[in-house]
């Protein structure tokens, strides 16, 4: 795995575009298709906006995003210093609910799981580390 993109920036919504630009440039340089890069953008937006909202909203720390590519697989590691939060453990939304019954929100983590080929969460002392991996081909669900 060689590192091909990295950004460390304050964990606030105003910095979403800078993070997205870092990831899309790295994925394009690695030769991934526009369609696959769209999937990555979606998963990364969902993961980082979750950090902006819940990790430490009153005192935003920094978020670090590192992209690497090896053996054809693109991986994006997202590290934040907020409170422990394992996005992979959230319950799946009930997609059969109608407009009135559906809760507002709750789709973000599900969209990450549906678009990334592999999602792993680790809690290190003081950090959440979420790694999203993507194969070149579109995920078959």
């Amino acid at each position, binding site marked *: 795995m060689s590192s091909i993109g990295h950004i460390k920036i304050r964990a606030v*919504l105003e910095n*979403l*575009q800078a993070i997205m630009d870092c990831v899309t440039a790295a994925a394009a340089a690695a030769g991934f298709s526009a*369609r696959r890069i*769209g999937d990555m*953008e*979606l998963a990364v*937006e*969902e993961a980082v*906006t979750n950090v*902006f909202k819940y990790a430490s909203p009153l005192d935003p720390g920094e978020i670090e995003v590192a992209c690497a590519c090896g053996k054809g697989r693109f991986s994006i590691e997202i590290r934040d210093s907020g409170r422990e939060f394992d996005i992979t453990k959230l319950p799946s939304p009930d*997609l*059969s*609910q*109608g*407009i*009135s019954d*559906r809760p*507002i*929100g709750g*789709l*973000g983590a*599900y*969209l990450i799981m*549906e*678009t990334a080929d592999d999602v792993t969460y680790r809690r290190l002392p003081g950090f959440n580390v979420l790694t999203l991996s993507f194969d070149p081909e579109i995920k078959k669900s």
Partner: protein
Amino acid sequence: MNIAVKKESNALVVTVSGRMDAVTAPEFEKSISGFIAQGEKVFVINLSGLEYISSAGLRSILACAKRLKELAGKLIFSGLQGHVKEVFAISGFHGIFKICDSDAEGLRAI
């Protein structure tokens, strides 16, 4: 994100292009809320020029749909493409919204 509107006899056609993400989605919700405040209840939302949508966009759409449901109004969608079509499908939005190929079809479906 860009929003353009056209008044038809039985609905307001709202064409949304660009990207509906965590930064821009609130603009969509605010815009639709403004039209609802002016008395509009039936919308055809044309997404043929929308390149990208995230859960923030879906959340704004659902919030508008809930308000309209209380007012006996509705949201109909037209022209979904590529990524947006896929995200609607993954999220089960095909099951809760009327989705048409064109505005004309959407206006007929009201």
